[in-house]
């Protein structure tokens, strides 16, 4: 024995350990007694209960997916609904040989090898789901073909399901968005429990932003099934809670008018009500049919959309970056007034070009022979570039940037449609940190007319214009107006988010700039005077033409010789009535040429539709 003390204490130690062993054994006996009592309770006392659940019955618990909430426009027109469709679903648990079943099903529906591979891939991804959709929207013939062969396919069933449908087709493809199959990426952002049995999830637009509201809550049922796993009787049912319906600010008629006015051009239009931020029209062209995505877009169809040079899947109204061009001038002018650099009396002389002192580079005005002597009002109305070159140069880029910041340039608007872009409102600090370069005075000069680094999105332009129209009240654009919970009749309005009115040094400054914008539309020499006719109220606007293509010092822009891709973008911002604005519009027409010729008439047709003026013409 190596233990030095073992001999001395051995007897006492054995005694000690044996006592403990007896105690432990008794304790173990007690635990087993408890287990036996528990088993007796389950197997004797509650036997009848469990037996009725299990005996003959094969109890199964299956999820009941909720019905997705509907989406309406402001007039109650349905934008997204659920329509019944037959789908072919597989319950892998009940399929003896999944490989063979898939192959035979593919033969039955004469599907290509590619599609079969695609389906197998999806089965892997959707592991953990009990049911798997093999094919959606079966035709009546396909249903019949399968029914005849059903005995060959245990675990495969034709199920009537509701699937999403967008009756307006492409009209709201970008704004309302679409739902699609839940993929691996989606699984990370959802509560898997709540999506058992759900086949689709909001992928883009409002469908995605309000996914939680629209989806609802899963229910489940306990059913008795026969040996093949087919349901015989329902034992217990906790119904699902349908998703809430959404009521949008969008107006189908206005949207259609806007989309038609844009015609075959690529571009974007945002129209909103400045008092609430409610977005009444939001168009991005080209568009596509969102219904293609609902039941899984085919590889071929998707390739067409994805590879198109016009990028139809790209939501230009939120993500398109455009130089604001002259539409920035009212804001720059307001900055000049507010920061005390100019007043209504300040005049510049426009000879058709502007040069920085000591440099001979000529920054040209669009009017090559010049506007002559101009003040702020005429400069906005006639869009004189030289006045704003001068003004921006006097202001300096950083004060200008800080002022534009209040209007949201270079910042997200917070609109309730996902994946918005920030745009860019440059400053010397921005250039230093992102490009590690100094800011050049020449860059300030062209910033004054919204060129150079300036990039804005159409939604941003609309928000900034709304802030101007509301004399400094900054609103968050909002597509959804209200929601209605399942089974309730009352709408719950979403909060509108607006800032307090910006305090100006002199509140007259607002009116000076807005009067100048009225002059654009109604003035004798206003750049958009052709759209101001026959209006029962004053409308304020500003045209813009943004260069896509840099023109050298001595060349002239000539639309006829330039490829269409390099034509200028046409922009127009507007609101009406000017003294009490009801609607704000921002229009961007890609390669549309001049803002006054292409973009302004689009805004006018929206205003005509909005105020019901069509008959007057």
């Amino acid at each position, binding site marked *: 024995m190596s233990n030095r003390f073992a001999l001395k204490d051995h007897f006492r130690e054995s005694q000690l350990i044996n006592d403990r062993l007896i105690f432990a054994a008794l304790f173990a006996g007690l635990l087993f007694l408890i287990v036996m009592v528990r088993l007796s309770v389950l197997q004797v006392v509650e*036997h009848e209960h469990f037996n009725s659940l299990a005996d003959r019955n094969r109890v199964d618990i299956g999820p009941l997916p909720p019905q997705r909430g509907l989406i309406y426009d402001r007039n109650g027109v349905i934008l997204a609904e659920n329509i019944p469709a037959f789908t072919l679903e597989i319950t892998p648990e009940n399929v003896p040989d999944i490989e063979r079943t898939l192959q035979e099903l593919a033969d039955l529906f004469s599907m290509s090898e590619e599609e079969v591979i695609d389906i197998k891939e999806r089965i892997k991804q959707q592991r953990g789901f009990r049911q798997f959709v093999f094919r959606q929207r079966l035709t009546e013939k396909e249903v019949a073909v399968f029914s005849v062969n059903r005995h060959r396919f245990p675990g495969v069933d034709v199920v009537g399901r509701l699937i999403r449908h967008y009756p307006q087709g492409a009209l709201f493809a970008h704004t309302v968005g679409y739902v699609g199959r839940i993929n691996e990426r989606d699984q990370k952002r959802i509560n898997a429990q709540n999506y058992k049995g759900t086949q689709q999830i909001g992928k883009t637009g409002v469908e995605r932003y309000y996914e939680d509201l629209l989806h609802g809550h899963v229910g489940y049922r306990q059913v008795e099934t026969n040996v093949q796993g087919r349901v015989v009787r329902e034992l217990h049912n906790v119904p699902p809670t349908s998703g809430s319906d959404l009521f949008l600010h969008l107006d189908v008629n206005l949207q259609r008018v806007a989309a038609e006015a844009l015609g075959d051009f690529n571009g974007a239009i945002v129209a909103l009500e400045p008092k609430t931020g409610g977005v009444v029209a939001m168009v991005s062209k080209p568009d596509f049919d969102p219904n293609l995505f609902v039941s899984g877009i085919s590889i071929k169809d998707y390739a067409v959309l994805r590879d198109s040079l016009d990028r139809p899947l790209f939501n230009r109204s939120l993500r398109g970056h455009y130089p604001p061009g002259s539409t920035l001038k009212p804001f720059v002018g307001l900055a000049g007034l507010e920061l005390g650099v100019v007043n209504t009396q300040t005049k510049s002389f426009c000879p058709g070009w502007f040069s920085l002192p000591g440099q001979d580079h000529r920054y040209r005005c669009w009017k090559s022979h010049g506007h002559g002597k101009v003040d702020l009002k005429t400069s906005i109305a006639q869009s004189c570039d030289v006045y704003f070159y001068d003004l921006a140069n006097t202001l300096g880029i950083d004060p200008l940037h800080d002022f534009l910041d209040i209007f949201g340039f270079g910042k997200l608007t917070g609109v309730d449609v996902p994946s918005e872009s920030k745009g860019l409102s440059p400053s010397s600090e921005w250039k230093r940190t992102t490009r590690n370069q100094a800011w050049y005075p020449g860059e300030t000069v062209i910033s004054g007319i919204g060129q150079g680094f300036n990039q804005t999105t159409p939604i941003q332009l609309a928000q900034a214009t709304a802030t101007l129209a509301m004399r400094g009240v900054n609103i968050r654009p909002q597509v959804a107006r209200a929601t209605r919970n399942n089974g309730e009749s009352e709408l719950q309005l979403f909060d509108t988010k607006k800032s307090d009115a910006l305090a100006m040094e002199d509140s007259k400054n607002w009116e000076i700039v807005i009067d100048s914008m009225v002059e654009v539309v109604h003035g004798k020499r206003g750049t958009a005077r052709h759209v101001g006719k026959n209006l029962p109220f004053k409308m304020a606007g500003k045209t813009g033409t943004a260069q896509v293509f840099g023109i050298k010092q001595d060349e002239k822009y000539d639309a006829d010789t330039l490829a269409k891709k390099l034509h200028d973008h046409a922009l127009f911002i507007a609101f009406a009535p000017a003294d009490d604005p009801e609607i704000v519009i921002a229009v961007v027409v890609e390669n549309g040429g001049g803002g006054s010729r292409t973009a302004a008439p689009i805004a006018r047709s929206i205003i005509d539709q909005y105020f019901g003026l069509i008959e007057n013409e």
Partner: protein
Amino acid sequence: MNDLYDRTAPNRWSLTGVLRKIHLDALLLLGLLTLLGVGLIILYSAGDQSMALMVRQLTRMAAAFLVLLILSNIHPDRMRDASYWLYGAGLILLVFVLAFGHEGKGAQRWLDLGFFRFQPSELMKLAVPLLVASYLAERPLAPSVFRLIVGLVMIIVPALLIAKQPDLGTSLLIASSGLIVIFLSGISWRIIIGFVTVCASALPVLWHVMHDYQRQRVLTFLNPEKDPLGAGYHIIQSKIAIGSGGLFGRGWLEGTQSHLAFLPERSTDFIFAVIAEEFGLLGVGLLLVLYLLVAGRGVYIASQAQTSFARLLAGSISMTFLVYVFVNVGMVTGLLPVVGVPLPLVSYGGTSMVTLLAGFGILMSIHTHRRMMSP
């Protein structure tokens, strides 16, 4: 009855005599073989009568018996000598597994050695009681407070490493095997009661450091109906299977719940529910008695051991075996949370079978290496 071969020289050609030669204990062997046989019968039913499954399980049993035979032929003193080395190697492997381990079902437990995969935590199931028993038995019992604390550290370090894998079930089992040694070593009741009080008050802290899936299991355990599609599904289905078995069961191969695939993990962790459904209260009662008899033989071996080290070790191995059974059955019947502990010697699966039979090999070694004289 035991005196027949314990105290007298056995007949060299009798079965017990032959077994004695190769250091096997007849009664314990009989109990183990009965349990394994019952296990195979159940597995045939639970595994949908798959012969391939049976063959794999039989192969594992054979391998496990080989380990048992080897260990039973090693003198307990040699095991004591090796205890520090085994424990040290186990600790290093545990750290290794956390760093490079193979992930299976979301937990890092495996070391892939090419030809087979190895779980260091299984080694620790034996190394921890071995080390604590050998350490405490070095000095007279009951241990001093210092030795008690050192012993506790020896238990806590591997338990924490394994809990981090994360494998809470194994971690708790290993901790309990070590704590049983400490309990058997005769520490005073005052310390035990104090310890239990501290543990009880540490529960909220434990809750705080638990993984989400572990909390989920505990919450589901407390109210399984709350989550019938997810975590609660196991327990609901398991209770239905057990309850529907009644007093005498539906009969072998007749269980509807298990055969229609409502019962998840029915050949591994939830195999007890299959037994309960097919053989009823009577069947599971007999099975539990069988477990008690095997453990009882172990406790008897402990009480007859010649050194304190061997007593402590044999006692711990026997009692831990019962803890396994209790934790699994408690889980399946909804008494305890679902922690993923197999039903010893019956559930399908290799690693725990080898470890368990290795433990019984140690018991047999302790019993058959006694010198033929009264202590």
